[in-house]
C-alpha cells in the first residue's frame, strides 16, 4: 500500500509570533521554520505502517516556496521514501491545496493519504476534509488511534464527548491528532540516507490547478494583552467590583 503524506512548512512552534506592522500577516523573515507538528505525527504514523509491513512506499508532498524542500527532506530523514515539491506561494488556500493533492493522488494512486489535522499557522483544518470530498473518499479526522484491517481501518477519533471509533474503507483520507504517536527524530544514518532520496519538483500548472485567491485577509492583529489579576479583601469588595467595574452582575 502506498501512503501519501502532505507536509507543510510553518513557523516553528517555539517561535514567538510577531504580527507585521502593516497587519497583512505574521512575520516570517528570519524566523525559524519547521514541519507542521501535526504533519510530523502523520509522517511518524506512515513510517510505523511501513515498519509493520502495511505500507510499501511513503511519498511526502509539500506545496509552498522552494525552501519547503527542507520540510520534505526532514520527512525523508524520518523514513519517507521520496518527495514531491510543488513550488507555489507560501499562502495557498486549503481548497487549492486539496485540488493539487487530488491531482497528485490521481497520478500516484495511494490507498491512504495521511495528513495533520491542521497546520499551526492558519489553523484552517480543511485540507484533509476537502481532499476526501474532491476524491469522493471516506474521511477519518482527528485520529488518536488507528488500526489497519483488510481493506479498511478502525480509527478512534477525539471528539468533544470522548472517543469515537469508526471504520472507514480504503482508499481514504486520515487526519491525525496530537495523541496518535510521538514522532521520532531523525537519526544520523537516516539523515545521511535522506540526502540520496529523490525529490520531484513541479508547479501548480503541471497539476492543472490555478491557485487563485478566494479569500481576502482584512487584517491580522495580535491577541489583546491579558491584564494581570487583582486580589480583593472581602466578599463585599468582590461583589462591588463585579457590579461596578466588570458590570457582569
Amino acid at each position, binding site marked *: 500500500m502506498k501512503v501519501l503524506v502532505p507536509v507543510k512548512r510553518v513557523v516553528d512552534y517555539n517561535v514567538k509570533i510577531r504580527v507585521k506592522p502593516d497587519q497583512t500577516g505574521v512575520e516570517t523573515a528570519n524566523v525559524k521554520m519547521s514541519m507542521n507538528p501535526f504533519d510530523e505525527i502523520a509522517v511518524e504514523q506512515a513510517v510505523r505502517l511501513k515498519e509493520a509491513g502495511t505500507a510499501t512506499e511513503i511519498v511526502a508532498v509539500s506545496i509552498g516556496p522552494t525552501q519547503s524542500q527542507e520540510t520534505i*527532506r526532514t520527512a525523508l530523514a524520518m523514513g519517507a521514501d521520496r518527495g514531491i515539491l510543488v513550488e507555489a506561494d507560501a499562502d495557498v488556500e486549503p481548497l487549492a491545496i486539496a485540488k493539487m493533492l487530488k491531482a497528485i493522488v490521481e497520478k500516484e494512486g495511494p490507498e491512504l493519504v495521511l495528513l495533520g489535522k491542521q497546520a499551526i499557522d492558519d489553523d484552517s483544518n480543511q485540507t484533509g476534509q476537502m481532499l476526501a470530498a474532491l476524491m469522493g473518499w471516506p474521511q477519518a479526522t482527528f485520529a488518536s488511534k488507528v488500526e489497519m484491517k483488510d481493506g479498511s481501518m478502525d480509527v478512534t477519533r477525539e471528539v468533544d464527548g470522548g472517543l469515537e471509533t469508526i471504520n472507514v474503507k480504503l482508499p481514504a483520507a486520515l487526519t491525525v491528532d496530537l495523541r496518535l504517536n510521538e514522532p521520532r527524530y531523525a537519526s*544520523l544514518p537516516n539523515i*545521511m540516507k535522506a540526502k540520496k532520496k529523490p525529490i520531484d519538483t513541479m508547479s501548480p500548472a503541471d497539476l492543472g490547478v490555478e491557485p487563485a485567491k478566494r479569500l481576502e485577509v482584512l487584517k491580522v492583529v495580535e491577541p489583546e494583552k491579558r491584564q494581570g489579576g487583582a486580589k480583593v479583601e472581602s466578599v463585599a469588595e468582590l461583589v462591588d467590583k463585579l457590579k461596578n467595574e466588570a458590570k457582569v452582575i
Partner: protein
Amino acid sequence: MDFSLSEEHRMIVETARRFVEEELYPYEAEVEESDTLRPELAAQIREKSIELGLYAANMPEELGGGGLDTVSMCLLDRELGRANMALNYTVARPSNILQACEGEQREKYLFPCIRGEKVDCLAMTEPGAGSDVRSMSCKAERDGDDFVINGVKHFISHADWADFVILFAATGEEETPRGPRKKITSFLVDKGWPGFTVRQGYKNVSHRGYHNFILEFDDCRVPSSQVLGVVDQGFDVANDWLGATRLQVAALSLGRCHRALEQSLDWAVERKQFGQQISKFQGVSFKLADMKMRLHAAELLVMEAAWKHEQGAMEDMDAAMAKLAATEALAFIADEAIQIHGGMGLMSDLPLERIWRDARVERIWEGTSEIQRHIISRSLLRPLGG
C-alpha cells in the same frame, strides 16, 4: 562564497538539539550536585545516542562510525556542548588517533570504541610537562620485544570510564640543530595491567562529574604490538589525527555561548526594574549586542577552520584562532550573562554559574590561550624570518 548550512547540517543540529534537551538537560542538576555520573545514567545515554547514530559520529562510516565531516562534527559538538560535560561526553567521540590502529589493534581497540563497548582516554600531560609537552619524563625503554614504561601522567580526563589509555612516552633522544629533543612513541595500555595504576586526580572548579586522574606507570611491561603508529614517531601520529581536537574544544564552547546568550535574552525581556524591562537599559542591551558579536565572530572562525580541515587545507593557525576566539568569547559571554542576571546568575538554579565555572578550563586545556597566540604569531612571523 556560501555560508549557508546544508539540509543535512540543519537536520543534524535539530536531532542533536532535541537529544540534548530531552536526554541530557534533565540530568544536569543531579550531576552538578552529586559531582557524579551514575553508571546506569551513562548506560542510558550511551544506548540512546547509539540508537540515534550520535555515538562515535566522528569516526568514518566504513569503520562503523557516523562519518560526519568536520563542519557537521563541529555543529554536533556545538549542540552537545550546551550540556554538562560529563553528560555530553558520554556520547563518545573516540579519539581520532585510534584510526592509526593496525591489524589486531583494530579489533581490540578501534571497533569496540566505535560500537560503545570500550572507552578510550588520552595521556600526554605530566606534572612537569604541560605546554612544554615534549619535555615529558614518562619513558618507555625497550627490553627484548617489550617496552617497560615508567613515569606519571596527570590531568587525564575520564580515565575512570576508560578501558585503556592512549599513552605518549619518551623512547629516546635525538640531536637536532636546536639541541637535543625527545623522541616520543604512542602506546595502547589496558587498565589493570601490572604496573599501571589509576589514581583519583584533583578536585577542580570546572566540569563536575567529569573527572581527571593521575596515571602511574611502575615498570609496566607492554609488548611492542601495543605501539600505536610507528616507534619514535608518536608526535607525527598525534599531528596526523589530533588536528581537529582544538576545533572540538572550540565547538563545545560555542554551544555554551549560545545557551548563556539565550538565557540572557530571555531574562532581559522578562525582568523588570525601575518600571521597565531591563533590556530597555543600554547597560544591558549593549552587553547583549557585544555577546552576540563575539559569539558570531568566533563561530565563523570555527566553521571556516572546520571547512578548511575538510578540504585538507587547515593550518595550525586556523585551529589556533578558532580555539582562542571561541574559548575567550565563552569567558566573556559567561561573565556578562551573570552580570545581566545579577545575583540570580550566581545561583545554581540557572545553568550560568556552571557555564561560568566550566568556561575557565577551556582557555587552558588543548593548548592555553598563550600557546594559541604563539602558534598564530609564529605562523605570521616565521616566513618573514621573525
